[in-house]
């Protein structure tokens, strides 16, 4: 039977980061991916956060397939059908190298990343699904079983980078089943437009790109957000909501996406574009309080599989890459010290996470999922009020300004009592502090 130092299950950002780092350090690494090639099963907006990748491949900019650097960010509140209230941040410094964020197309990016993993010396095998973990009588994870004949493979440690569904850990009894309340379902289209059209519509040039993050009643009161990103010759447009909400409201993701595409603020930007790709994916957005056990005897879990997503800041792949790197560095450190991959020794992985932005950020926003879950009106009432207030204020109709402003404030307290407003303010402060 084949035996490796480490088996990495999955070839997304976390798995690739782990496999690359391990192989570079000279450990024997097998990476198993169920997709036909790395990237075929992976879905993301997608924005690449340079910092996390830089710490793994410092010169990634020389060869990685990057679409555009983010030169401008817009935050939009969209109501169901009419208005858009927003803020724009454009900064010339965003266009100075080295850039901090890029739009990418994951199918291409993941292929590139996987090439780096192979070059580093890891053995990458695709189209092979890991069905379960192999355990010794004491319960230590000693390898994996694949769906293929003669498919058992041994390893000193298995890194679970198997993505949002986290089936392997669940099947092995290492974690509970993921909950619909903790999962967002996002759908996305990649639509083609000529480069010149994109650049004129978004007021950008060269490799500049625009990122639009979207919230408001476009999600029909469900907890969720949308996005519109510029690639070189295409746009990525998508929307995601909590799975449990969708189930309750029996709205399909494609209805939401069609609504977003038809919105008068969005429609002119995507006019004439041809759909090239449609995809959907789960995002674990349960945050800190939904984190599973992160390590055990002979195993570690990284990336989406561990639930490392900062839903508030729309970050995930950077947490994934960083957790993959930490997992690898933990194993490398233990191997160099001649220590076995026991649960006690692998606790060092958790300590690395605790000492980094990964856990700090997840802890900071730990109350947000609950807040939004318990007070869903927050995402409906305030955006709508903001839109209504803006419309009132900007409509010139002979009404004295004082009366108008009073009426607008009156609207707010009518929608939500003063006590309710104070309560929301307090809850917000507590969740985001």
């Amino acid at each position, binding site marked *: 039977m084949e035996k490796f130092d480490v088996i990495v299950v999955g070839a997304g950002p976390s798995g690739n980061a782990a496999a690359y780092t391990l192989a570079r350090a000279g450990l024997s690494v097998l990476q198993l991916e169920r997709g*036909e090639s790395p990237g075929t099963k992976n879905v993301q907006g997608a924005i690449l956060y340079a910092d996390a990748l830089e710490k793994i491949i410092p010169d990634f900019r020389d060869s990685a397939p990057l679409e555009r650097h983010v030169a401008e960010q817009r935050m939009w509140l969209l109501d169901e059908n009419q208005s858009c209230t927003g803020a724009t941040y454009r900064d010339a410094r965003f266009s100075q190298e080295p850039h901090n964020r890029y739009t990418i197309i994951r199918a291409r990016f993941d292929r590139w990343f996987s090439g780096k993993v192979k070059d580093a010396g890891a053995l*990458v*095998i695709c*189209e*092979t699904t890991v069905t379960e973990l192999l355990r010794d009588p004491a319960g230590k994870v000693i390898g994996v079983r694949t769906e*293929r004949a*003669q*498919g*058992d493979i041994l390893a000193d440690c298995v890194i679970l980078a198997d993505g949002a569904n986290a089936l392997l850990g669940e099947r092995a009894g290492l974690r509970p089943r993921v909950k619909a309340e903790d999962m967002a379902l996002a759908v996305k289209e990649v639509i083609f437009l000529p480069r010149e059209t994109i650049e004129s519509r978004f007021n950008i040039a060269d490799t500049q790109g625009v990122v639009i993050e979207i919230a408001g009643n476009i999600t029909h009161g469900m907890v969720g957000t949308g996005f519109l990103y510029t690639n070189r010759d295409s746009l990525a447009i998508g929307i995601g909501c909590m799975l449990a909400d969708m189930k309750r409201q029996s709205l399909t993701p494609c209805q939401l996406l069609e609504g977003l595409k038809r919105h008068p603020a969005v429609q002119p930007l995507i006019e004439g574009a041809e759909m090239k790709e449609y995809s959907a994916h789960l995002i674990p957005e349960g945050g800190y309080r939904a984190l599973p056990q992160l390590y055990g005897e002979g195993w570690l879990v990284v990336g989406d599989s561990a639930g490392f997503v900062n839903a508030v800041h729309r970050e995930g792949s950077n947490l994934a890459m960083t957790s993959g790197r930490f997992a690898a560095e933990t194993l490398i450190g233990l191997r160099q010290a001649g220590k076995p991959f026991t649960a006690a020794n692998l606790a060092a992985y958790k300590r690395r996470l605790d000492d980094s932005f990964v856990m700090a950020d997840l802890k900071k926003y730990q109350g947000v999922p609950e807040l939004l879950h318990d007070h869903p009106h927050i995402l409906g009432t305030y955006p709508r009020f903001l839109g209504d207030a803006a419309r009132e204020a900007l409509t010139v109709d002979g009404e004295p300004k004082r009366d108008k402003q009073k009426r607008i404030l009156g609207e707010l307290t009518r929608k939500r009592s003063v006590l309710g407003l104070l309560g929301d303010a307090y809850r917000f402060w507590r969740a985001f502090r």
Partner: protein
Amino acid sequence: MHIAVCIKQVPDSAQIRVHPVTNTIMRQGVPTIINPYDLFALEEALRIKDRTAAKVTVLTMGPPQADDALRKCLAFGADEAVLITDKVFSGADTLATSYVLAAALKTLDAREPVDLVFTGKQTIDGDTAQVGPGIATRLGYQLLTYVSKIRELDADSRRILVERRAEGGVQVLESALPAVVTMLEGTNEIRFADMPGMFRAARQEVERWNRDAIGVDLAKVGLKGSPTVVAQVFGPKPKAVKAFRVAGDTPAAMAEAFVDRLFADYPHLEEAMLEHLEQVDRQGAKE
């Protein structure tokens, strides 16, 4: 016994679109697959290997990315893989392709005599079915096209007995070896590679042969060696008939409206149907 299987990496034609203006195929972002017909050829070769311990070598002419397709063949159980790749080979039509493949097979034969050459009946991108016969002609091998079954194969007497699809029936042909066999679709199903096969495919070296390795006349390869001229490319015209909505409060009313609309659009239809009904009535009355 040494079996060579010629395969081609092709764009997945199910995912290909034709550019609405230029009428050219838009290959960008279209995944590549092993030509599905070639998989029937490979599986047939592997079944012979299972029975007789034959050696199976897979060849393809293509760009460096065709390495992926060859590795898949290794995973299924092929013993060796050769990628025939060189910039001068690009732009080849079926004439130049079969010339290069024949040269490569000659090189392979010199190293280890080839008894059988398998390939799919055609590719899904060109659909010509010319390369298999082109190879057989150049090598002077027997040619068995559209083979649906290999009934017997005797390495000692160097005979092969096959069933071949022909117009209006099945031919049973016996032939001497070496022969080129082009396999028909649906004759078998490619196996699911086992894990040791996957490891072998990931680790094994895929040999690369360029123009020097197979000794070709540069005037006969690639674009230069391809006399085929594409005079015109056109897409099928979309149908001009538009769908219409059938209104009505009840299913019966909808059916009525639908029939009315049909008769309005196709007046002769009403006449023909009435005539037919009368005929049925008359027959009924007679009985």
